[in-house]
């Protein structure tokens, strides 16, 4: 495994804490995002932010799933989120450069997902000798209209709020200190 020295026993707990942090901040992030996008997103979020039409990695694991399966699913999820959040952050820097708090939260969330990916890589390699996981990313928002960019971001974040909660719940028994 790469950087074997860093892949220590505390990584499992770190991963849980990272998920917990994302779960704790996801809703505030989504709310702030809607607020910063203005109308109609503020009032029509349910309609405009419905994630049904976008790609989002399937997270079909539960608390009884195997830990390896959970780890892989999470890796796919957060790899997707890391990329999507990167796109959203880039779009918001363009669309709402004055929304400092939103941008700060997007940055922090993105960084956390980066760290989470690093930790999951460590766990997959260390525990399951998994060195490679197929990951699918979402559609790029480049070249889309501002509305579409906002909407795409809104749809991703809404789904993110739903999934991160599930992930936190699933991950809790698997990553609790043994």
């Amino acid at each position, binding site marked *: *495994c*790469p*950087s074997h*020295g*860093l*892949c*220590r026993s*505390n*990584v499992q707990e*770190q*991963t849980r*804490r*990272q998920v*917990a*942090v994302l*779960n*704790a*901040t996801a809703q505030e992030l989504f709310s702030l995002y809607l607020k910063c996008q203005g109308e109609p997103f503020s009032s029509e979020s349910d309609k405009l932010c419905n994630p049904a039409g976008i790609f989002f990695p399937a997270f079909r694991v539960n608390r009884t799933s195997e830990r390896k399966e959970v780890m892989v699913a999470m890796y796919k999820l957060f790899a997707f989120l890391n990329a999507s959040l990167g796109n959203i952050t880039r779009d918001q820097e363009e669309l709402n450069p004055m929304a400092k708090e939103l941008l*700060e*939260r997007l940055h*922090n969330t993105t*960084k*956390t997902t*980066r*760290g*989470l990916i*690093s*930790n999951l*890589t*460590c766990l997959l390699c260390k525990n399951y000798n998994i060195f490679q996981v197929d990951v699918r990313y979402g559609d790029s928002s480049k070249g889309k209209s501002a509305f579409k960019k906002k909407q795409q971001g809104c749809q991703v974040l809404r789904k993110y709020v739903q999934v991160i909660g599930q992930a936190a719940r699933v991950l809790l028994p698997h990553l609790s200190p043994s």
Partner: protein
Amino acid sequence: FLASGGLVQSCGHIIPESPVLALGSNFTALCILNESCLDFGNIYASQIIWKIKNRLVPKEQYREINRTVSSVTFNDTSALATPLTCNILADGQIEQNIYGITVTVGLPPEKPKNLSCVVHQVSRFTYIMTCTWNPGRHTFLDTQFRLRYSWPEEIFPDCIPKDVNNSCTITDIQFFVNTEIWVEATNALGKAESDPLVVDPIDIVKPLSPQNVSVSSGILPTILKLSWENWISDAVMTLKFNIRYRIVGDTNWMEVPSEDTASPRTSFSVQGLRPYTEYVFSIRCMKEDGAGYWSDWSEEKTGITTEDQPSKGPPIWRIIDTSHSPAFWIVHLMWKALKPFEANGVILQYEVTVRDKSSLSRPVKKYNVTSTNYTLQLPEGTYEVTLIARNSVGASPPSLLLIPASNSKPPVKNLRTLPKHDKLWVGWTAPNSYVLKYVIEWCLVSSSSDCIIEWQIAPGDVQGIDLKGIKPFKCYLITVYPLYADGQGSGLSVKAYLKQDRPSKGPTVQTKKVGKAEAVLTWNHLTVEEQNGFIRNYTILYKTIDGNETVVTVDPSKTEYTLSSLTSDTLYTVRMMASTDNGSRTGPDFTFTTQKFGKGEIEAIVVPVCLAFLLIVLLGVLFCFNKRDLIKKHIWPIVPDPSKSNIAQWSPQVPAKHNFNSKDQMYPEGSFTDVSVVEIEADDKKSFSEQDLKPFDLLKKEKSTSEGHSSGIGGSSCMSSPRQSVSDSDEGETTQNTSSTVQYSTVVLNGYRDQTPLQVFSRSESTQPLLDSEERSEDHSGGADSTAQRQQYFRQNGGQEETSADRPCFERTMQITHANEGDLVGFVQLQISGQSSQPLGLGMEKNTQEAALSSVLQTCSEGQTVRPETMEENPLSVDEMPKSYLPQTVRQGGYMPQ
């Protein structure tokens, strides 16, 4: 150098080019000549010389490798300097530079050590990580440090320090990922890396301190609730806390037990606080598991607990004033306000209750007081005074004070003091009886004001307390009273200083008495303000101007001292020094001079001298007295009495005129040296017959045509100097002295026309020798007569006062009395001129006062009635008188000059 096509080409070069060398290593440089220069200039490697900064390198370090290459070797690069040049001696003498290089000597970087990092929270979502390390030794080279960090599969951009080489701050950090951090140092001589630090940044966080801290009082008076907000969400990091608090005004912090605040929270109720007390709170936090750093303390917030009833009664004491009437006391009750932690609120009033214990039937008196003292007038007796403090919540327990009839119970023992920094410790030994508590009184002793009493109560189980507020260098009188359950003990006092200093001035000494060999010095005690401590002794220092100083130590209770064994008639300088335990101070100099003679010495000299003088005088007087005859003979020779002369017996019936004239001729005037005074009263003239007066008329005529001189009153005695008669002055031809001259007085009865003639004694001077028999008869009989006559004269003179009521006499006397000397002269002249129109000349003026006096006496005697007495005393007839020559009291017929 070779010129080719306008360009200058070097004839050689040095390798390595501009090397960077490690300090202390060896180094070899090669100078390689171009082949073209060999043929052109006949230059070979053997001609190469090496220089370091114009200093020739020893040829031992050279080596000619071939005809074009020369090397130089340095075993230690510390000897190197820049530039290092390769030179050649052209034509064997001319030195030309071929090439030069710069040499840089330094050290490779050391491995950075002691790398440590701290993540500082700067805002709710922003964290920065600052790492510091020890860069190691100075390398003398440009050395770059960079802080590097990475995740397992990701390396982040390096952090390059700015302006420093031992710290760098990373702004992009991520929690919950093990991060490898290390420092890399690089320079021309190498690269060094620190040991890696693998850490999850969340474990090295120094969070921001809690914000919006607030304090609120709870229901209970001993609880305050503290609330705050955390900057970090629990999802990121759970926190534990430290809470500290203190009473406002106090500097000592108290801390809530850490285990009580070891879990995440945003509020905490602090218990066990004092009622009605203002507290200051502050809080800090850190990661719950203890990893990382404590935040700074938050801003301080204050809160006040609610009131509670006073926890104890006020300490109470009293001063009993019995000065007005011993049977009727004025009791000054005084108590101390409760300390805030005892009052537990605002004391609204005090309730004083006085119970007369000697008479239970008397009603209990209650007083509500808002101040901390109260004055009562009580009959002498025993009283129980209780005091209660009351606030809005309730009343304190009562404080009890017994006012006894007398302090007959035992006092404390062994009262002592000991300074302790800025406090004065007072200790005592408890009496044998059980003591409830002690009252300690103290006051600042002052010479100018009364002792203002301060007091304090100590529990009965202690045997010493610290007195606060005691000023250094001040004298305090401290008294301790034991209070028993049934009364009060006697007080025991002690004087004490918190700190002593030397006196602020020295005593002023002066002399009370100075003798020949001793001096009594006196001085006043220094006032208590001047003492600054206990005066242990006085020191007297005295010396003469050129002598050694003598030191005498005197007991401090004395104010007088006698210096002895001093040198007489010597100036001494004395000064006095007062000493405390901490030093001395000398007073002003005082000088005095010892006396030349001791007490009684002068008397011992003067008294004998005076006595001797008096003795001599006395002896002299006695001598004079014994030798009076001899003295009289020399000074006042005896004038023979012609009446007793044998001559008188020769011719007792010789006419007076003849005799008179013959005598007048025989003894010219001016030969007298002494005067005899005989008074003749003018009114006796009436008793004279015309016959009797004829001779006088003849005499008048003769005197008016002759050098008649009126004699003054003459006389001599042992003590009086002989006075020259007025007749002496105009008889300069007379060469006979007094001893050879027999003096006579001639009585001249003279009148001017119808005026009553005055009887005047005219001094007759005769050089006629007297017979021895005459002198002897004078000695035996004439003397007695003359004495009798003088006595008669003096009686008349003295009788003037008795007869001064006679007006004419009085008036004339007054004229003389008030006349000055000039007047007297005129007066006398007038009188004389009445006798004779002939000017009297100088002789009269010389004795004007005497003449005037005689005239006065003569005039005053005109109306006197003593004349008959005089005549009765001398009832002799004229016929019987010829025997007498000396002037005698004029009788009828008078005496006739013989």
